[in-house]
């Protein structure tokens, strides 16, 4: 087994936590998508949102906004702790970081909408082929957009940081997003 010697990973303890929190973030919206339990559990139609949850949604929104702010701040601190930037590098890195986060958030929104559409369709019973086709194509578009975005920022960062630091930042983002993606994939039910 090939191993990496004495790798110091300050990020590791954080990775899983941030991952699951970002997962919440990806699903968060004023009308949170709720994936229904498997039909095999109960033949009866499931309600999308329980009445109790619906009435509490206003205060949940505020909590969600607070949680999202905290996640953003935690992530930024995590990146800062791992990047070891000089003052000159920091001055050029953080504006790029912020605009990358904004673009990632737009991608998350698209993904969240697609998941919500899927949850809605799933709650109505067997999914029509055209809906499946539309959702699948959206999911692929989002994936492609994310890869393209990553490449474009890798290039932008390359102009302002040494390549090892660019690569390290890409790794940090990747560690976080890989966990989020995996969480999402495990929780979203197969289409029938």
């Amino acid at each position, binding site marked *: *087994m*090939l*191993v*990496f*010697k004495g*790798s*110091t*990973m300050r990020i*590791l303890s954080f*990775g899983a936590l941030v991952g699951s929190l970002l997962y*919440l973030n990806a*699903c*968060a919206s004023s009308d*949170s998508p*709720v*994936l*229904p*339990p*498997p039909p*095999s559990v109960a033949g009866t139609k499931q309600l999308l949102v329980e009445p109790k949850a619906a009435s509490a949604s206003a205060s*949940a929104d505020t909590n969600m906004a607070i949680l999202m702010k905290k996640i953003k701040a935690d992530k930024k601190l995590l990146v800062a702790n791992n990047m070891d930037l000089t003052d000159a590098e920091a001055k050029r890195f953080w504006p790029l970081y912020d605009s990358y986060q904004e673009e990632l958030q737009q991608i998350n929104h698209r993904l969240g909408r697609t998941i919500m559409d899927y*949850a809605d369709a*799933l709650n109505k019973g*067997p*999914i*029509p*082929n*055209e809906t*499946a*086709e539309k*959702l*699948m194509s959206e999911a*692929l578009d989002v*994936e*492609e957009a994310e*890869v393209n975005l*990553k*490449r474009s920022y*890798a290039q932008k960062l*390359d102009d302002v940081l040494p*390549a*090892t630091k*660019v*690569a*390290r930042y*890409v*790794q*940090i983002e990747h*560690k976080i997003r*890989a*966990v989020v*993606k*995996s969480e999402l*994939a*495990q*929780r979203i*039910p*197969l*289409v*029938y």
Partner: protein
Amino acid sequence: MGTRVDIHTTRQGTSHRKALTRFVAVVAVLLAGSAMAQSATDTNMEILKQKITANKKLLVAHNMDLNDAEAKQFWPLYDSYQKELEQLDHKLGKTITEYAEAFNKGPVPNDTAKKLMKEVLNEEEQEVKLKRSYVEKLGKVLPATKAARYLQIENKIRTVVKAELAQVIPLVY
């Protein structure tokens, strides 16, 4: 927040659902190991890989509910997709090995970091393209819900593998 739904919906009931969960966890650990395997354990690794390949196929078969006509058209596409995925995995494995070597020599030089990062980005791009091309092919031989379901199964497996890899590979310094 959403109700937490464990894995996926299946008409076959809980046994297959559990099977997929367990399988995904096992594959992730094994593939993460396999990507970094050294020659001493090559034979065992080869046997293990064959077993994983067979397990995966059975898992897909169980979850796809294909009729005979669909099966006849689906499996050849499945096999060629697996081959292309394997080639991608090889490239990725090579990149990881190169990184491990560079990493073990001390601080990674900038040009090495640049080269490796470029390779990883290329591989990622190729995987998305490959996926799209097979979605189109599958769309011609299967109803869209089944094509989407197959894609979901692959996605469940690969996202776990990717997450495992991302967690075990150290940051570059």
